[in-house]
């Protein structure tokens, strides 16, 4: 015997609030109908109206929730296992037969429930709300242009009420057909449903399967590079340690500048050290800028030659070159430049390091 998490918080809040409101509406509605006396007629009418507005708000929220979270799929009607489910209630339940369907977070309802709840959501509740609103605004709607009276609205509204009362009776009774008599009610309160080991295993496995499927879908639809980065970062976070973070730190501390240029000759990545050497303050000053940024006529030619060479697949290790910083000062450095390859071996850019030699030059 295991307990499995089936109903989340909103699910439980919505279910019990709706249940309480419907029962309250039935009681006050019967008083308005003249069947019983409890709150006093005027209070009964006021409470009935207030409860109805509360229920409408709750239902609107829940429809929104159904669609955002995908819960609406729970209500897709199906005839799969329908006969088995009916047979279970007629014979199987008396012979200790297992439930023909499994209850999981993703398929909470058996085929009978799917049909019934869909009927409630699409037929009874809209009819009740519509007839109720017409009842409430009778003098602003039906009676304002014609002399029709309340009778048919009242009849439809009362009919719906009887259907709901019957539903509630059977619904409450069927909660006792779970693993134990109270397991379904307890699950609706706490979220955790008690199940046989087999059912629990199924529920857990399905839960995992669904999540994995979702993940696969997500992977298929998203950028691989990004995903890899995310995955790596996640793993790093879990381990609290990465290999390249040491290397990166070492490079950063040394003041060596790192740069990466794409095939269009534009900067795609530079590190802290590079920014310091070029006296730049923000990455945005550099990223996506052409390689010839901040260089005079002669320097530009040198740099463009190097870029062309590298893009042909050669690694360049240069001696000293001149650089013009952002504030106009002149500095010198030595550098390396090597091609960047993608997984198919095609050159997609250039990367390298620069080491400052301004002091030696003087």
């Amino acid at each position, binding site marked *: 015997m295991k307990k499995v998490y089936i109903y989340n918080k909103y699910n439980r809040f919505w279910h019990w609030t709706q249940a309480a409101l419907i029962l309250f509406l039935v009681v006050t509605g019967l008083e308005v109908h003249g069947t019983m006396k409890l709150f006093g007629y005027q209070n009964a009418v006021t409470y009935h109206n207030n409860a109805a507005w509360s229920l409408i708000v709750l239902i609107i929220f829940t429809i929104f929730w159904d669609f955002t979270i995908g819960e609406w799929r729970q209500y897709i009607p199906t005839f799969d296992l329908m006969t088995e489910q009916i047979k279970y209630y007629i014979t199987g339940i008396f012979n200790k037969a297992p439930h023909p369907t499994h209850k999981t977070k993703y398929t909470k309802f058996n085929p009978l429930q799917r049909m019934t709840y869909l009927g409630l959501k699409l037929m009874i509740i809209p009819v009740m709300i519509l007839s109720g609103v017409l009842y409430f605004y009778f003098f602003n709607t039906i*009676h304002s242009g014609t002399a029709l*009276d309340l009778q048919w609205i*009242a009849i439809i509204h009362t009919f719906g009420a009887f259907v709901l009362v019957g539903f509630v*009776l059977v619904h409450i009774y069927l909660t006792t057909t779970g693993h134990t008599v109270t397991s379904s009610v307890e699950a609706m309160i706490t979220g955790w449903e008690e199940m046989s080991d087999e059912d629990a295993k199924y529920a857990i496995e399905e839960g995992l399967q669904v999540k994995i499927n979702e993940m696969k879908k997500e992977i298929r639809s998203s950028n691989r590079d990004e995903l890899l980065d995310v995955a790596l970062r996640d793993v790093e976070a879990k381990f609290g340690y990465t290999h390249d973070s040491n290397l990166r730190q070492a490079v950063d501390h040394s003041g060596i500048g790192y740069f990466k240029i794409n095939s269009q000759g534009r900067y795609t990545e530079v590190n802290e050290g590079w920014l310091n050497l070029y006296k730049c303050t923000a990455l945005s000053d550099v990223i996506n800028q052409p390689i010839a940024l901040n260089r005079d006529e002669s320097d530009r030619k040198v740099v463009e030659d190097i870029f062309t060479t590298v893009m042909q697949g050669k690694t360049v290790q240069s001696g000293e070159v001149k650089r013009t910083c952002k504030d106009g000062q002149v500095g010198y450095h030595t550098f390396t430049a090597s091609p960047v390859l993608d997984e198919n071996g095609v050159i997609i850019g250039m990367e390298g390091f620069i080491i400052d030699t301004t002091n030696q030059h003087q």
Partner: protein
Amino acid sequence: MIYIKCYRACLSLKHRRTFTPVKMKGVYQQKLILLKSYKMKTFFKLVPSLILPMLLVFTFIFTYKGWEEKEIVIAKLEKASKNVDHSKFAELQKPFATPQEMTAACLSCHNQRAEEIMSTAHWNWSTPDTLSDGRVRHIGKKNVLNNFCVGINTNEMLCSGCHIGYGYSDKNFDFHNPNNIDCIICHDNSGKYKKSKGQAGMADTTNLKEMAQSVGPTNNKNCSKCHAMGGGGNNVKHGDLDMDMTDQDICTKDIDVHMAKDGADLNCSQCHITSHHQIRGTGPMTNSTSLHNAENRATCTECHTDRPHNNPTLNDHYNKVACQTCHIPTYAKINKTTVNWDWSTTGLRNGEQFKEEAPDKMKKSDSGHGTHTYGKNLKPEYFWWNGKTEVTTLETQIDPTKVVDMNALHGDYSELDSKIYPFKVMRGKQPYDSKNNTFVQIHTFGPKGSGAYWSDFDWDKSIRSGMEYAGYPYSGKFAFVETRSFWPVNHMVSPKTEALSCTECHSQNSVLAGLNDFYLPGRDRNNYLDWAGKLFVLFAALGVIGHSILRVMARKRNIR
């Protein structure tokens, strides 16, 4: 794929005790929760998701009373700080020999007012009434019949004791002589003015100078003198207009919230707004299908608006229910009112006049008037009404096999401008021409030998005299027919705590039991649907019970 691999790597770490889960989306968290050993959540863990929202929702349901908060406007007209002191006027210093001389003195200053007065119903006892086919007829006290004293023709000497003129003794009265206007009857502020009984409205001439000097704005006593005393006694006619309502010691808020000193303390004319001597408010007895008359009413909504409650559902009732219906649960709260006048029990017994009175004084008979039945603290009867009535005159053909309505009410549920109004229903039995099937004018008041019934006690002579005078044919045969007339109850508005409660209409023993041309929640239901619904719920319950019994039995069998 790499991503999945990474996750698998992470998942494999779950065995490590030092590992602390970081909130991540997806599989990993789910797995952890699933494998976590289950603990029953405590009550407090349910508070934020279940109990708190439920408390909030039901607090709203039980406390929210509606979103209409409208200020109730009580119009309280500013009373003039000081009235003109008529005792200082030179014109009023001389003694007046006749009341007409006094009126001439009034009109010497108020020189355009006579024309206004002479166009009012108060003066003419008749107003033009446009029928639905466009014809205009004149109706009013002059020719409309009721089921109290029936009509004024031949009886003007007595009836015109309430006319705002002097000497309206017969149909030849000069309605164009301004000096015949009785200004004092409405404007006397001394409370001492009297018209002599049976003298065609002539004033008691003993102290006309003092009367003339004491005039001022109209007050409740001026109006009530006629409107409360109509029908021959205090409150007997309307039932909601009582002379004692002008008495500050008797009229409390419980009697009438508007006129009581501890209530709004209003004057008649503060609701019955008057302009150029035309007073707002037309009685339904003398009113007909005329739009002008039906619209000339003083209404509650002028002060209170048509949505005065802060509960929208209560306000919606105004579409179909008049304010008076709920807010005047009882009338005739101080003195009794006549509810039945049976003229057929009149006549001499063994040649002698008789007079009988029940010990509780609620029933009275005599030779001249027949039998009066009274009621006190009465509950109104309720009818649909759109403000228009069908009045009865000597021309009206009646169906004597049924109870005849003297002022049949127009309107029913299906008419959008009809509302449910409370009425005092006056019932009676009065003579009619049994051959021509018309009502007859009876001559009641007059000297012996004139044919007046109260002197001669002979119906045939009385009717003959009345019909001849009025100019209508009389076949010579008469009988008595049962009648009803409807008197809308508009005054004696109770404090709001006394108003009809919902269930007085919305229940099986509804006070509106007679009005069944519409669906009234709480009173009406579709019996087929109710039975079908009850059966459905019953079958559901039986199914549940049967199924559970079978389950219990099966379980016992399985255990064995």
